[in-house]
C-alpha cells in the first residue's frame, strides 16, 4: 500500500504523525491514558518497536534478544547519571554508544546464521546477559534490586559546577528542564518523531530496498554474488541503537535500570508489539507498542469493581453473568486477552492492525481496481503465502 511513494506523501505522513504524537495528551484523555508516565511509555516503546521493525520487518530476521540492548541502554544511562551528570544528553549518548557497540558484537556473531538458528542465538545471548546481570555482574547492575541513584553518587561533572547543596537526589534534566511529567513526555515525543522520520527515510532508501530484497529473496541475491551480511549487520546495529535509545529514555524519565528489562520475555514483548501493529509497516510498531502498554497499564487495572461499574447499564441478572464471562479477560487476565488477540492477528491478519484498518477502509471506499490474485501474495508484508 506504500508503493507509490512521493515526497509529498511522506511529508503528509510525517505531518500527521507529528500532530498525532504531540496532541496525544488530549486525544488519549477519554480512554484514561493521558498521564505522563503512560504517555512516556507509549513514546519510548514506540521507538523500541520502530527500531525492531527495521530489523525484523525489513529483513525477516526474528531476534528474540533485543531487550538486551534496551537493558544496556538503561544501565549506561543510569551510570552516566551516577558518575557524570544528571543532564540527559551524555546519558543518551552513552546509552546509544554502548548498545551500538554490543549490537555490533552480538549482531556479528548472530548473523552468521539465519532463520531459527538466528532466533535461538539471540535468545541465548539474551538469557546469558539476563542471568549475568542478575548474578555475577551485580557490582554493575545491582542485581535484582536494580541500579538506582543515591545521594552519595559522585556526579563529577555536576559537582564541578555546583557545590553540593544536599537537597535530595537531583532529578534528570535537559539543561534545567526536569525530565519527569509532561516535559519528559514531550522530550520523548520529539525523539520518537525523529526516530520515525529516520525509519521512514530508511524504508525509502536504497538501503531499505536492499534489506527487503534480502528478505524476499536471499538465495537469488546470493547467486548474484551479493553479500547481504554487511547490510544485515547495519540493520541489526541500527535497531540495537534504537533499543539502546529507548532504554536510555526509560532511565531518563525514571532513573532506574533493572535486569528484568533484558529477559527474553521482554524481547518477546517487542515482537508482540511489532506483529500486533503491523510488521514491516511504518506506523504499525508504534500502534502495537501503544496497544500493549495501554493493556498493561490501564486494561490490567480494571478490577472486579470497575467491571461492575462499567456494566451498570445492564439489567440486574445480566450484569453478573456478563461480568463472570468477561472477568477472566480483563484486569489481571489481560495477558490472556493479549495472547488471544495476538494469535488471531498472526492467523488471520498477518499485516497486523494497520492492514486491518486499511482493509476496513477499502471495504467502505468504492473500489477502483480489483487486485490481481497472484500479485497479492507477492506483496504481502510478512511474506506469507496465504493458502489452505
Amino acid at each position, binding site marked *: 500500500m506504500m508503493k507509490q511513494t512521493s515526497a509529498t506523501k511522506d511529508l503528509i505522513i510525517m505531518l500527521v504523525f507529528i500532530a498525532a504524537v504531540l496532541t496525544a495528551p488530549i486525544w488519549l484523555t477519554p480512554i484514561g491514558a493521558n*498521564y505522563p508516565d503512560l504517555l512516556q511509555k507509549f513514546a519510548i516503546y514506540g521507538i523500541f518497536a520502530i527500531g525492531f521493525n527495521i530489523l525484523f520487518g525489513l529483513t525477516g530476521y526474528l531476534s528474540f534478544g533485543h531487550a538486551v540492548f534496551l537493558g544496556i541502554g538503561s544501565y549506561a544511562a543510569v551510570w552516566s547519571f551516577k558518575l557524570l551528570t544528571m543532564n540527559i544528553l551524555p546519558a543518551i549518548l552513552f546509552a546509544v554508544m554502548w548498545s551500538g557497540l554490543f549490537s555490533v558484537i552480538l549482531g556479528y556473531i548472530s548473523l552468521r546464521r539465519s532463520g531459527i538458528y538466528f532466533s535461538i542465538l539471540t535468545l541465548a545471548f539474551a538469557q546469558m546477559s539476563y542471568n549475568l546481570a542478575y548474578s555475577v555482574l551485580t557490582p554493575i547492575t545491582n542485581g535484582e534490586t536494580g541500579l538506582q541513584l543515591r545521594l552519595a553518587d559522585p556526579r563529577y561533572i555536576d559537582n564541578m559546577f555546583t557545590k553540593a547543596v544536599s537537597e535530595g537526589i537531583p*532529578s534528570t534534566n535537559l539543561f534545567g528542564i526536569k525530565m519527569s511529567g509532561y516535559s519528559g513526555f514531550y522530550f520523548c515525543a520529539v525523539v520518537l518523531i525523529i526516530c520515525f522520520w529516520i525509519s521512514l527515510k530508511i524504508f525509502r532508501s536504497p538501503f531499505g530496498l536492499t534489506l527487503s530484497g534480502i528478505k524476499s529473496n536471499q538465495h537469488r541475491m546470493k547467486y548474484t554474488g551479493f553479500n547481504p551480511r554487511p547490510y544485515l549487520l547495519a540493520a541489526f546495529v541500527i535497531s540495537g541503537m534504537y533499543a539502546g535509545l529507548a532504554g536510555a529514555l526509560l532511565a531518563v524519565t525514571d532513573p532506574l535500570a533493572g535486569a*528484568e*528489562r533484558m529477559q527474553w520475555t521482554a524481547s518477546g514483548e517487542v515482537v508482540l508489539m511489532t506483529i500486533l501493529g503491523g510488521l514491516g509497516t511504518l506506523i504499525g510498531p508504534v500502534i502495537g507498542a501503544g496497544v500493549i502498554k495501554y493493556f498493561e497499564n490501564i486494561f490490567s487495572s480494571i478490577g472486579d469493581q470497575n467491571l461492575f461499574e462499567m456494566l451498570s447499564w445492564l439489567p440486574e441478572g445480566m450484569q453478573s453473568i456478563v461480568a463472570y464471562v468477561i472477568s477472566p479477560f480483563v484486569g*489481571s487476565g489481560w495477558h490472556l486477552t493479549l495472547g488471544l488477540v495476538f494469535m488471531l492477528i498472526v492467523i488471520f491478519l498477518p499485516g497486523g492492525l494497520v492492514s486491518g484498518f486499511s482493509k476496513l477502509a477499502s471495504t467502505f471506499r468504492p473500489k477502483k481496481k480489483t487486485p490481481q490474485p497472484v500479485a497479492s501474495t507477492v506483496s504481502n508484508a510478512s511474506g506469507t503465502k496465504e493458502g489452505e
Partner: protein
Amino acid sequence: MSKIITSKWSRRGVLKAGAVTGAAISAPMFFTRNAFAAEFLNDPGSAANVTFGFNVPQTGAYADEGGDELRAYQLAVKHINGEGDGGMMNTMKPISLSGSGVLGKKVTYVTGDTQTKSDAARASAKRMIEKDGVTMVTGGSSSGVAIAVQSLCQEAGVIFMAGLTHSNDTTGKDKRRNGFRHFFNAYMSGAALGPVLEKNYGNERNAYHLTADYTWGWTQEASMIASTENIGWKTAATVKTPVGAGDFSQFITPVLNSGADTLILNHYGKDMINSLTQAVQFGLRDKQVNGKDFTIVVPLYSRLMAQGAGDNVKGIFGSTNWHWSLPDAGSQAFVKSFGAEYGFPPSQAAHTCYVQALLYADACERAGTFMPSEVIKQLEGYKFDGMGNGPTEYRAEDHQCFKDVLVVKGKENPSSQFDVLEVVEVTPRAQVEYKPDHEMFAGGDLGPANNGV
C-alpha cells in the same frame, strides 16, 4: 473464579467502591490539576475523597502474599471509613481516627500489580501518582520492589508505606525520608534467632548458607552470619542462588559433602518452599554430621510459605513479624475481623499492610493535612500500641519500626491447616535494637522530605 464473585462482590460494597474508584479514574488529571495552587502533590483540597494506592503483586511468585495484602487494605479502608466491626481501630492507641474517614474525607483506593518486578511496580505506582492522584502508595512483597518504589515516591513527593520488605537496606542505605517500614528486618531476625539457636543447637555448629541473590538475601545472610558467629558457630560456605531458580538440587547436593551440619536457607516465598522441600527430599534432616543431627533454619518465615512447604517445616526455626495466633487484643480483633470477612486468618503480610494503612491515616488526621512533610513529622518517632506487636516506635533516624520479634517453629502437630507455626519466643525489642549508624545500615541518608511541588 466463582468464589471471588460470591465473596468479594457483595452488591452494596461493589457499587459504593465502584462509584468512587470510577470517579477517580475518569477525572482527567491533565485538566483538573493546578500545580501552582496546590501546596503539595495530589492535594485532595476540598474533594470529598482521598485516594490511597495499593501496589501489590497480583501475578508472579508472590501473588498469594499480594492477594492477602490487598484483602487487608480493603479491610483497612472499610474500617477507616467506619464500616464493618472496626478491627484494630478498637485497640489502637493512641488513636485520632474516628471512623469517619480521614480529615472528613472518605478513603477510596486504587490497586496496581507490581508483578514482583521493579519496573512494573514503578510503572503502576506512577500511574497511581500521576493519574489517580494518590497521596500515599503502599504495598509490595519484595525488598527489591520496595526499595525501587520507595525511591520513586521520594522523587515524586508522596508517602510510601512499605509492605512486606525485610532487607536491611530498605531502612538502611536505601532509606528515604518519604518512606516508612512497619515490617521488621534481617538484622532483627538474626538478633532474635541467635539465642534461640544457641539454646537448641549449642555453640559448635557449622552452617552452610544458601542465599537468594539480591538485596534481601545479602543482608539476611550477613545478619545471620553475624548472629551465628556471635554464638560460636562457624560458617562453612555461602552460596548465592538465583531468584526463582525453581530446582535447587544442584545447590543442595554440595551441602551433603561440605561437612556442614546446619543449612540456613536465606530464601523467601516460592524459593523457600522449593529449597526447603528439596533439602528434606535429599535426606538432609535424616543425616548425622559430626555426631549432631543435621538441622535447617529458615530465618524469615511466613505462614503462607509454611503452608506451601507442608510437613517439611515441622520443627524448623525461623522468625516472623506477626502471627495470627497471638493472644493480645489487637491481634485478636484483627483476626476476628479478617476471618469473618474472608474465612481464613490473615498472614503477616496482611497484618503489616493493614497496620500501615491505619498508621498513615491516623498520622494524617493528627497532622491535619495530607502534606507529606507534615505527615512525616507525625510519624517520625511516633510511639503506639495495640496493633498486635506490643509497644511500637517508628524511629525518627531511619524510619524503621521497633518492636518485639517473634521466633517461631514449624508445629509438630498442627490442629488446623492454618496452624502450622508455633511461637516459641517473643524476643523483646531491646534485644533486636541497633544503632542507626550500625555498619549493616550505614551509607544511606534520609534526605529532605519531598512534597512534590
